[in-house]
Each structure stands twice: as structure tokens, then as C-alpha cells.
């Protein structure tokens, strides 16, 4: 491992550790979960970022992981399922009321982030754009439903907070939409996509990390 690569890995691990400590602190967790908008639009993405930073490039060169997650399809599927699951109001309420569901929330978001980090070199632009656009569409739909609902959907959160969450999810959907378009840029520009080379079948690459 070269010096810049090692520094990058250390920085990533430091970020993961700092985020884990921050999110585990009862006061911070209580604050993030005290409002639906913070819970959905800040805490959940931070958990994914924590998993992303912790995994880094540790697995991306491993042939076994590459075989199980060809072209990043498994990581993208896991991330889509996790996103869909935590858009459901009953899941969000139970994450506050049941320790088992709270643990499932932490594990699923951090795990999805870690799998995406491991797959980021393997995933092709088309696959990435498809899944990110799907996440944008899902966030926008949930956001519009939250904005439209006049009744409390979560017993732990007030209606005005629910509407703020709707706006926050719409903002996320715009970001994700922009990401999906950016993922397609190499194809539109006619340059060979970076992910394509990595996804081509070939001998196992040297293990990194």
C-alpha cells in the first residue's frame, strides 16, 4: 500500500470511528431521533456514511466478494431494499420503541453503506444510474406522501415535523437525481466508463486493504 493510499485509508477509518462515536452518544442520538426530519434525512444517511467509511476499499479487490457482487448488483439491491424498508412509517416508529428494530436499523444502514463502498469500483454507470434514480424516485414519492398526509403517520412525531420530512426527502430526491445523471456522464461523453474496466472478467486482482 502506497503512502497516500494508507493515509486515505486511515482518514476513512478515523471518519468511521468519529461518526460511530457521535451516533452512539445518547444525547446526539436522542437529538437526531427527536424529530422525524432529522431521523430520516440526517441520521439514516450518516449511518450509511459510517458503514461506507469503515469498509473503504477493504473488499473491493477480493475475488470472492467480486464474484458474489458482480458489477455491484448485490450492493445496489441491498441499498434499495434498506431504503424502501425505512420509508415505511411503522418501521420508523418501531426503531424508537423496540431495541431489536433499532439494532436492525443501525446494522442495515451501516451494512448498506459498507457494501456500496466495496462495490463502487465494480458497479457500472448504467447500473449505478438505474439504482440511484430509483432511490430518487422512491424518496420523492415518500416525500410527497408525507407532505400530503394530514394525519400523524408516526405516533412519535407531529404532523408539522412530518411535513418537514416530506420537504427533506424531496431535497434528497433532487440530490439523488443529480447523482444518477452524473453517473451517466461518462457514457454520454463517449468515454469508456471507469466501472466497465473493473467489471470485466479477468484474473483475480491483488487484494488490497
Amino acid at each position: 500500500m502506497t503512502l497516500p493510499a494508507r493515509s486515505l485509508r486511515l482518514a476513512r477509518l478515523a471518519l468511521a470511528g468519529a461518526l460511530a462515536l457521535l451516533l452512539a452518544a445518547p444525547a446526539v442520538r436522542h437529538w437526531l431521533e427527536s424529530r422525524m426530519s432529522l431521523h430520516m434525512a440526517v441520521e439514516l444517511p450518516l449511518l450509511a456514511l459510517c458503514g461506507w467509511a469503515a469498509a473503504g476499499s477493504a473488499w473491493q479487490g477480493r475475488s470472492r466478494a467480486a464474484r458474489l457482487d458482480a458489477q455491484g448488483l448485490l450492493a445496489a439491491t441491498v441499498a434499495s431494499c434498506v431504503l424502501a424498508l425505512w420509508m415505511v412509517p411503522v418501521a420508523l416508529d418501531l426503531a424508537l420503541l423496540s431495541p431489536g428494530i433499532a439494532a436492525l436499523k443501525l446494522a442495515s444502514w451501516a451494512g448498506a453503506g459498507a457494501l456500496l463502498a466495496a462495490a463502487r469500483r465494480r458497479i457500472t454507470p448504467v447500473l449505478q444510474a438505474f439504482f440511484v434514480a430509483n432511490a430518487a424516485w422512491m424518496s420523492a414519492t415518500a416525500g410527497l406522501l408525507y407532505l400530503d398526509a394530514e394525519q400523524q403517520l408516526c405516533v412519535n412525531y407531529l404532523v408539522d415535523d412530518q411535513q418537514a420530512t416530506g420537504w427533506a426527502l424531496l431535497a434528497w430526491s433532487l440530490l439523488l437525481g443529480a447523482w444518477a445523471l452524473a453517473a451517466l456522464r461518462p457514457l454520454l461523453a463517449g468515454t469508456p466508463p471507469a466501472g466497465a474496466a473493473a467489471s470485466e472478467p479477468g484474473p483475480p486482482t491483488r487484494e488490497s486493504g
Partner: protein
Amino acid sequence: MSQPPSQLSSQPSRPCPENRSTAGTGLTLAACAVVLAVTFAVLARLTAGFECWTFETRRRHDAAAGRLAWPAMALQDATGQTLSLPPLGPVLLVDFIYTNCASVCQSAGAAFYQAQQQVQRTGADIRLMSLSIDPARDTPPALAAYARLHRADPRTWTVAVPASPDEGRRARQALGVIAVDDGSGGFVHNGALHVVARDGRVAGIFDTADWPQALALAERLAEARP
């Protein structure tokens, strides 16, 4: 990325890249199918078979299926007397209130007055209970004022507060009744009306406006003597 030909030729048993790629794709698709199946199963469990997308509908679904038990709790009524819930005997119709509430809890009081009149008319073995979620402010005098305001007859309708804040919190948690601070000194809560059978099982949860249906269920349960 690629290895020199000499290195490749020294490993004749290695499968060709196309075969490895096909095997990898198959493995990935199988893993994706497992992930989808697990997500489907988790979602089915969380939503009680894709029927309840919110916590409150799931709670009502659990009650209707007989899976919600009323937790034992000690109370203090408007006269300062200590009692325990659920009492073995009458069917209970319970709502959650706080006396400082200017809207929902007052309409709940009005609905309970009508229910009280009907219970006294029919003589059904049903007791009405209004339980406070605000033990800090709802002292016996405050409860007595609420009872007076809504003409609660203590022979049929008890207005009470949990014996301690912890006791109330524990019981509400067991029932899934969540009170959220509304930011202006009050609460927003999902209390509604709970019909509690003689065996302590919550038999149904209804919106306050649906008190006639709640009372009808309580009457059916009261008629079916053990």
C-alpha cells in the same frame, strides 16, 4: 489488471474467464433473490402481513387479534384513593386524557358522558376510565375538576392518574400509547378508546368519534359472562 501469458500458462486448471463470469453472475442473482426475500419477510412482519403501514393501525390490529394485554398498574383517582387496573370484574372502556387539554380530551369527555348515560340506562357491567398522561399536573383536585366539568358519575366513570410517572410510562409503553410534547405545554397522543375484556385483554381500540362502536363491543363482552 491482466497477467503475463507465461503466468497464465502455469495455471492450466484455472477456469476460463467467461465461465467464472457466468458463475459469478449466477451467484450474484441468487444473493439478490435472497436479499429480496429477506426484505419481503421483514416488511411482512413489520406491517402484519402488509396490512398495517403505521404503528397505530398495527396496534389496533394486534388488539383486534387479542394480542395486546392491558398491563397491571396502580392508580390514584380524583378522591385520592388508590386502585389498581385492570380490576377483575367489569369490562372497561378506557381513554387517555390530560386535564389541561383544551380540545381532543374535552371532546373525549363529552363522548364519555354520553357513554355513561347509556351504560346507566342499560345497566351493563361496564366501567369507564379516564387515565391521565400528565401525572405532574393532574393532581386529584385537577382530576376532580375534569370529572365535574363532564358530569362524571363515580359509580360508572373513574377519572384517575398513574400512581407514579414511571408507572404511567411503563404501562403506556406496554400498550403502545405515545404522548409527544406539542411544544406549547400540551401533548399529542394516540390514546383513543380501549375496550378491555374481563381477562385483561385489550379487545379493541377505537377513535373517540367511534365511541358507540366501542361501547357496543364492551356491551357484547359484558353480556358474555364467564
